[in-house]
């Protein structure tokens, strides 16, 4: 049971890193990113490919974070020119393009067969504990660091500027500030968190395939973010826990209710995520931890 809870915790913490990144994009800056899973995939594959070729894990992780951030750069540049609805479509297209690339470029990614045998964190770092424990501890530290960084950012002038972009971009321009560089930096930073999450994921599962990076994952994270409250640091934690609680709970439901196959359960999960998105935007766009003062 402890092992199970630890495993669930690892998944929750990986999702939390992604939610923190998305929250930076949408919650604080108002940039609609429907391609978050693309950054996650870039991070996962970068670290996986480097690690199986013998690169020291901390370096592989660093490369994952950097490459995920760099892959967000062109999208950030685009976000300067595009209306937010267009940006949504373009980012969705980006994540699908990443998946197409992974499927097609077999020489690099091994295509649909995926990459097996990715070293786990305890193996790669020579830590004297189980892989799950090592991943869990490092993920806790990574999330704390991420929260600290975001907290510092939000409280700084930079934070006030990006919130101004979300609330009234014209006003920010009128103050003589250029929203462009803020948007690009925010896009890259949020993507870096997703890339870090991807690297943790690859070394935790030790096996990556293109199927693990479907757009559905992006919208899991959207549900977590809106549920917890967009634009709230605490929201990411609350929303992610609720999401993982639901995803894991549905697994138990299948054990209790007889005759529900795993494919049917997958359909049910998809349906619940869809319904949650609809109900949240209609009835609770601010989320559980949402700001009710405005």
């Amino acid at each position: 049971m402890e092992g199970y809870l630890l495993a669930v915790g690892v998944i929750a913490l990986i999702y939390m890193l992604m939610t923190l990144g998305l929250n930076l994009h949408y919650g604080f800056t108002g940039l609609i990113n429907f391609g978050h899973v693309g950054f996650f995939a870039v991070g996962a594959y970068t670290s996986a490919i480097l690690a199986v070729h013998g690169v020291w894990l901390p370096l592989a992780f660093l490369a994952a974070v950097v490459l995920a951030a760099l892959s967000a750069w062109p999208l950030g540049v685009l976000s300067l020119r595009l209306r937010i609805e267009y940006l949504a479509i373009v980012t969705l297209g980006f994540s699908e393009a990443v998946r197409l690339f992974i499927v097609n470029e077999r020489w690099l990614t091994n295509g649909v067969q995926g990459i097996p045998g990715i070293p786990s964190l305890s193996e790669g770092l020579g830590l004297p504990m189980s892989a799950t424990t090592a991943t869990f501890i490092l993920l806790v530290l990574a999330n704390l660091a991420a929260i600290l960084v975001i907290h510092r950012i939000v409280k700084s002038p930079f934070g006030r500027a990006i919130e101004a972009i979300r609330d009234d971009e014209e006003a920010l321009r009128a103050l003589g500030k250029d929203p462009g560089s803020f948007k690009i930096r925010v896009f890259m930073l949020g993507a870096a968190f997703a890339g870090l999450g991807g690297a943790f994921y690859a070394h935790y599962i030790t096996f990556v395939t293109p199927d693990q990076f479907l757009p559905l994952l992006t919208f899991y994270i959207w549900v977590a973010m809106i549920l917890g409250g967009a634009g709230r640091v605490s929201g990411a934690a609350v929303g992610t826990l609720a999401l993982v609680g639901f995803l894991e709970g549905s697994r138990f439901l299948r054990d209790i209710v007889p005759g529900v196959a795993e494919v049917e359960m997958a359909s049910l999960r998809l349906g619940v995520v869809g319904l949650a998105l609809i109900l949240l935007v209609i009835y609770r766009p601010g989320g559980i931890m949402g700001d009710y003062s405005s």
Partner: protein
Amino acid sequence: MSFGYLLNLAVNGAIEGSIIALGALALTLVFGIARFPNASAGDVITVGAYAGYGGQLASGGLMAAGVVSGMVGAAAISLAFYWFVFRKLAGRSAVYPLIASIGAAFLIRAAITFFLGHDQRVYDVPLTRAVALGPVRVVPTDLYLAAGALAALAVVFALLHMTPLGRRMRAVADNPDLARASGISARRVMTAMWLIAGAVSGLAGVLLGVKTVVMPEMGWDLLLPAFAATILGTIGNPVGAVVGGLLIGVAQELSTPFVGFTYKIGVGFLVLLLVLMVRPQGLFSGAERVR
């Protein structure tokens, strides 16, 4: 690579493009009038394909029954989502209906895969031999598909430009406030628009199902090319959507000898990016359409 081969690809692309054009027309109607990119359009297309398949099966193989039930089924689901979801989000930032439309897309796909599974189905169409038209070889079925798509586009244009309802719809698309001030009932226009967009999507689903196979992801896969076509032809402009659809279809097919079959969908994305970078207002924007 002979000229005839490329010409064949172009013709194939135009036929596929006419189906993309139907999807783009549905998207552009919603974008022009309800003012958000409707991500559930793809899955409404899927509903059309399944409803059409069911209709053809129930009627003992009549293709006409398949077309009608596909259009009715998709129009019904489209109207239902307007009534229960998008109506409640009118007047809010486009972000909210956009996110809700993703939810609607997932809900539709979840229902399809839950009740009907992931099996591929095929329409009951007779296998025909390709006929040679000069250097181009075409399967007669494909000609029927293109003719069906063009007929539907003609009907929608007639509706938009020759009926009072169409005039009201265009008025709302051009200037919602002015339209309201002139006494146009937004609800009636919206209902009509969602019905038309749904029926057009349903036909797209049936045609796509006949051309390929019926499966749960078929409509979602059409979504990016359709969005690309919509933006290429200027959002809210039905003529632009159709031309954009044909262009994307031809571009996708012509690219296959160079980038391979699997990157085809990526070509739609690439075109989308290029248009947004170079001419974000699309190819068909007149001065009066710039928003």
